[in-house]
């Protein structure tokens, strides 16, 4: 079995960060494939429960991408979220989950390169910290084993 690679779950706001990630694509900027993206209308939609669930389901790190302050398509969704995220990072640390596992970034639709860099950085952070054991240890029955499939070869 291959070495387990880090698993990053990213919540991207539709207007800036998701578009930024699109731009990374259209400009063919390469980055690591260990990220899984969930599209949300605004970083203000991101609930702490999302992050908790992401960790529960095996994420080693979570990244939330929103518009830069002032650019929010919805005026101030990103600013409201910022308060929650600050608190959430404290909670994670206090509970014994390295706060670096939860990253927040402002990434505009023009910052394809920044998005690529972010993914790589967060992957490195996750690797440095190693797999998040805590939640796996309490998943009990719900710990789903890895599956393997092979390429069709076509």
């Amino acid at each position, binding site marked *: 079995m291959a070495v387990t690679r880090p698993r990053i779950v990213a919540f991207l706001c539709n207007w800036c960060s998701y578009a930024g990630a699109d731009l990374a694509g259209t400009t063919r900027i390469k980055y690591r494939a260990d990220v899984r993206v969930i599209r949300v209308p605004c970083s203000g939609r991101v609930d702490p429960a999302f992050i908790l669930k992401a960790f529960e389901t095996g994420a080693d790190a979570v990244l939330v991408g929103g518009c830069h302050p002032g650019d929010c398509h919805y005026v101030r969704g990103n600013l409201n979220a910022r308060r929650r995220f600050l608190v959430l990072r404290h909670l994670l640390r206090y509970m014994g989950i390295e706060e670096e596992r939860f990253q927040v970034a402002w990434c505009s639709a023009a910052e394809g390169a920044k998005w690529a860099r972010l993914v790589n950085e967060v992957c490195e952070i996750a690797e440095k910290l190693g797999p998040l054991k*805590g939640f796996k240890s309490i998943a009990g029955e719900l710990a789903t084993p890895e599956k393997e499939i092979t390429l069709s070869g076509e």
Partner: protein
Amino acid sequence: MASDAEAQLREKVKDLLARGKVKLVLGYGKRSGGGVRPLFTKLPDDAERLVWNDQCAPNLAGYLTREPCLGIMHGGGRVGIVAKGCDVRAIVGLVQEKQVKREAVHVIGLVCDGIAAGGSGAAGVPSKCLECEWHTPPMADDLIGDKAAVAPRAGDALADDKRIEGMTDEERWQFWTALFSRCIKCYACRQACPLCYCKECITEKSRPQWIAKSSTIRGNLAYHFIRAMHLAGRCIGCEECRRACPVGIPVDLLSRFLTRRVEEAFGYKPGRDPAEEPFFVTSKENDPDDFIR
């Protein structure tokens, strides 16, 4: 907490009820086998049964969002409530969050220099009394007690916090999982919390089920995690949750820790001023953002 305060209290309540200023006063009465318990005072004569001493730990604010108080306030009546500084902060929170109309409550604030050791579940003087800045309630219609007589308790309110902060991440995780695996999900902490007034708690949601219902460590951790987030910057540290927990979990640690962080970061202290907007529904351009990439 001189007994003359108790006498004044009885007088005041008797008078309020007699003059029909309030339909009901939430206070403390004797509990069989020592200690106190909430006393719903409805008739002027019931006022004689009110007590005020350092056993009066319970925060009665939670009753304001329940029957019969709801019905009384809804019908335009007023409810009186005997409240210590910490209790009053809960009432302020309820006003801020539109659960109670300020004019519908008559707050009988009591100057309090702390409740008895063991008063909130934990051994020793409750830490809330050690860090108390509210010996005199921040809001009251009547104030009983002698501000001068207040003798702050000695001790370190942040002892637990420091211990936990001193641990490694690994140790902290072990600490919490060990603690919460004890939780039996009786929801006493939730029901006792004056600010957990939701009619249907998110724990009861099954589609989707953010919080596993079971009292497995999985479910318990999720419950206390989300609860802490829901109380961050709202928890006024009355320690009712801790007092109510039958298996002795210091449930308040998380939410109080977060509320301190909120104060550091945003200068917001819950339960200060009924006119203040709750911190989590607003934001400022210059909020701290050093953690953002």
